[in-house]
């Protein structure tokens, strides 16, 4: 109570301090107020969420763009969005020659530097039936570069074979024929003969040209049957010789590592996936402009037909639904088939710097 009185006394006496401030204070204050902008931006709590959202969106866009650029051809969506859905149209004969002259303005992406165009698909070969790692003749792991392998086959001695280069060179120096890859191929055929979905092992089943919807493909398919019989016989003999080795070949690297090359081709294809799944005798994939036909010759061989272009390929490696194949007539050419649930991806490799890629997408009409 007494303290309250003291407070009252002091509060009343505090008025003794009240006095008018100097005028100069207002003048200075007015100047400061004049310098202050009238439009004051008020920060609202939701602004931080909006800013965060913008930031995240920007970062995601940047990363997506970067990934799309890095991954290149594997993401077909971008190419399709850009309107390159029918770039698979190539004039008939001289397929690869035409590709070399393919106008750049029809390409999905600008040309990459030459050194980035090389395709690096390594085959890992395991000669032991109980392990999944690949070994060479001396038991060491070996990586084979598909593109380099192709080039090596076409160029003969001196080809680089990825990390297997030293082994191959050693073989060459000792006068050994460079057919180590062929051995791997045949062993792969032996191992995977039963599991092959795309290639039908039932060679007694006659190929029915009428099953093809493309009439122009039938003559080539008929011819291929005669050619394939002799090829199959030779291959069967090799398989018997290599039955005990049971080699396993698998493609180790992922398709995501592939680089887009200027001559990559993209297209929407009409295909009969059901017949593909049932491993019927041949399988048709057709673009809107030009038919592509994959004709199963049996014995893990197939014929690729595109208009006037025809080429036979033998299976050399398999991993799941991915198959690596080698041209029967041109050792520098390799073919890779990747069967997805609803699409088929086809790659053609030629030498080191050529990469033809076709993605077959089902189009329901």
């Amino acid at each position: 109570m007494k303290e309250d009185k003291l407070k009252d006394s002091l509060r009343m006496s505090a008025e003794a301090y009240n006095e008018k401030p100097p005028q100069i204070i207002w003048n200075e204050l007015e100047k400061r107020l004049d310098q202050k902008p009238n439009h004051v931006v008020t920060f609202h709590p939701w602004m931080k969420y909006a800013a965060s959202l913008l930031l995240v969106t920007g970062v995601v866009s940047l990363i997506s763009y970067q990934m799309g650029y890095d991954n290149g051809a594997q993401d077909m969506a971008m190419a399709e969005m850009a309107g390159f859905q029918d770039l698979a149209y190539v004039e008939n004969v001289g397929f690869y020659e035409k590709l070399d002259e393919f106008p750049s303005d029809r390409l999905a992406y600008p040309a990459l530097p030459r050194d980035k165009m090389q395709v690096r698909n390594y085959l890992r070969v395991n000669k032991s039936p109980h392990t999944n790692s690949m070994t060479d003749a001396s038991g060491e792991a070996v990586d084979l570069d598909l593109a380099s392998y192709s080039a090596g086959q076409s160029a003969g001695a001196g080809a680089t074979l990825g990390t297997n280069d030293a082994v191959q060179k050693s073989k060459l120096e000792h006068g050994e024929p460079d057919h180590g890859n062929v051995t791997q191929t045949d062993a792969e055929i032996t191992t995977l003969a039963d599991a092959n979905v795309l290639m039908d092992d039932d060679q007694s089943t006659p190929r029915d040209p009428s099953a093809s919807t493309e009439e122009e493909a039938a003559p080539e398919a008929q011819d291929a049957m005669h050619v394939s019989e002799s090829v199959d016989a030779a291959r069967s003999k090799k398989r018997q010789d290599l039955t005990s080795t049971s080699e396993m070949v698998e493609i180790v690297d992922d398709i995501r590592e592939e680089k887009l090359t200027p001559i990559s081709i993209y297209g929407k294809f009409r295909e009969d996936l059901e017949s593909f799944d049932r491993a019927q005798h041949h399988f048709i994939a057709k673009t809107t402009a030009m038919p592509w036909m994959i004709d199963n010759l049996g014995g893990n061989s197939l014929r690729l037909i595109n208009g006037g272009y025809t080429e036979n390929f033998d299976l050399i490696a398999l991993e799941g639904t991915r198959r690596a194949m080698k041209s029967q007539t041109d050792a520098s050419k390799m073919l890779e088939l990747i069967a997805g649930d609803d699409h088929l991806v086809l790659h053609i490799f030629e030498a080191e710097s050529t990469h033809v890629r076709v993605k077959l997408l089902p189009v329901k009409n």
Partner: protein
Amino acid sequence: MTESEIIKGCKKQDRQCQRLLYDLYAERLFGVCLRYLRDRQEAEDVYSEGMYKVLTKIKQYSGSGSLYGWMKRIMVNESLMRLRKKKLQLQDIDDVSHLLEDDSYIEENLFAADIKAMMDELPTGYRTIINLYLIEGYKHREIAEMLGISINTSKSQLILAKKRMIQFLERMGHPRTESEKK
């Protein structure tokens, strides 16, 4: 023009309303600064800064309390900030029970004395506590938070300030009786 109209104008940065508000409370608010800060120049600086904040942040005034109370709080805070910069020294005494004094002597003789002179004579720490506790009406807990000290320090400073006031009154010719000394 009413106070609410002045506030409305100030929120729109109307210079005339700002001037009206400034004039309306200038004396009292400047007096607050003078009570806390002994140096007049410092008081003017603090007042100027405080008024700038009042006029630029008047949108934050909710209107629930009195406008003067809101403005005075700004002035007090500005004054305390200035004192903190000068490293306000407050003696911390944990046990203040033996210092408890009867305020009756001060009350009886305070009117007769020059309170302003007495306040000016008090050390800054004492004067700050008297201003905050006795004049502004803050509690010791609030003062402790505002000054960053313990509650006991706030209490002990107040008691020491009162002792100093008694000494001042005695010096001014108001001797205490024996009963008041007890």
